[in-house]
């Protein structure tokens, strides 16, 4: 007697989220139910977090916290986790990844969801200032931000407003990995931050598009971990003074960073770490970017050349 068994069914949910396109992919039944149920669960959680952590939604928890004049404010457990992750990223990168640059981001023009076509990277590079590595903000305001997880409170100096940046997306991928890790295979794409794994140890292709046009310039093949990509081409515009701008700021100047590196993909065991490493690598400039990729990754330079680190 023979039995026909069909394996490898992958449920896929694709949906808009975090100002981009998100996806949840699950193979095999597991703790979160069938592959379809698990993918739907991931989608619902990502959409809920999107509403909770958006800087552009007036009623989001983040916006309410940023408006709150009190030095210490109550927060949800998810917000407490995010702030801890953001402070961890700041510590890991020596302040290069700084979650307290919201006023500078707004001054640079990133005060709303960017829906217009990005300013072409090649043109931005022609108009941009001389290349230089970014540095931490000497005031290091993030050092004065604390979270009391037991009391569910956040304390920060008056006037300090937080931005989720990409760290939140990395964290959400990590949280979903906890729910989906018991399935055969899964991948969560949080608007470009990818977390993947599964008990079957299946290899998954992770594709990296070029910042100069979108064609795939490299494909990693991995079974578990995270990949995050930071770059200056997707969210880019001309500011009020006609200068090229983007959302990755040099904390030392509060201005968009032009370091000679235009895009970095970092691999890491967790999404939070991958996100922090990719940003730190880009901000560090072309000479030091590779030192931020201990788990591997891909660096794309101003001239379009790319370096793969396995």
């Amino acid at each position, binding site marked *: 007697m023979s039995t*026909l068994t*069909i*394996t*490898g*069914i*992958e*449920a*896929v*949910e*694709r*949906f*808009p989220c*975090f100002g*981009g396109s998100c*996806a949840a*992919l699950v*193979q095999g039944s597991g703790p979160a139910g069938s*592959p*379809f149920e698990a*993918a*739907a669960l991931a*989608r619902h959680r990502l959409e809920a977090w999107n509403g909770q952590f958006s800087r552009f939604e007036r009623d989001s928890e983040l916006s309410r916290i940023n408006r709150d004049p009190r030095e210490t404010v109550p927060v949800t457990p998810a917000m407490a986790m995010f702030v801890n992750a953001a402070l961890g990223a700041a510590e890991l990168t020596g302040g290069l990844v700084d979650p307290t640059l919201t006023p500078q981001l707004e001054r640079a023009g990133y005060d709303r969801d960017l829906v217009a076509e990005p300013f072409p990277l090649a043109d931005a590079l022609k108009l941009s200032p001389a290349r230089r590595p970014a540095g931490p903000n000497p005031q290091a305001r993030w050092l004065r931000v604390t979270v009391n997880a037991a009391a569910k409170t956040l304390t920060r100096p008056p006037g300090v407003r937080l931005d989720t940046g*990409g760290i939140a*997306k990395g964290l959400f991928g990590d949280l979903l990995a906890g729910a989906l890790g018991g399935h055969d*295979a899964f*991948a969560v*794409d*949080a*608007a*470009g*931050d*990818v977390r*993947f794994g599964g008990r079957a140890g*299946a*290899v*998954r*292709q*992770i*594709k*990296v*598009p070029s*910042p100069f046009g979108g064609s*795939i310039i490299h*494909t990693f093949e991995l079974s578990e971990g995270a*990949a*995050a*990509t*930071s*770059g200056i*081409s*997707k*969210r880019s515009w001309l500011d009020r003074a006609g200068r090229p701008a983007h959302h990755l700021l040099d904390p030392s100047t509060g201005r968009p960073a032009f370091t000679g590196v235009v*895009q970095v*993909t970092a691999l890491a065991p967790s999404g939070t770490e991958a*996100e922090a490493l990719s940003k730190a690598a880009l901000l560090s400039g072309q000479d030091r970017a590779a030192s931020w990729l201990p788990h591997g990754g891909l660096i794309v330079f101003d001239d379009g050349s790319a370096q793969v680190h396995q």
Partner: protein
Amino acid sequence: MADDRKRLVAERLAERRRRTVRLRKRVIAASASTFGLAWAVIFVQLVSGHDPALAHKARTTTTAATSNAPASRTSSSSASSSAATTPVTTSQS
């Protein structure tokens, strides 16, 4: 005369039996061929990852999801069936 009629009847009956057997064999062969062909088509379809039951489930989910989403948004669900995982793209976040 009577013997001739009996022989004729017997021959006709024998011919009818042979014809019945012949038709029965043809019907059985045609049925078996049709079943085998249908089975092979469905087998190939499932193995190649195009289970219509799964495709139907995905469409249902898509409809439900889209109806709950704002008009300006689009979303989709689907199922793919293959031994490998679906590639994903890491892009600037």
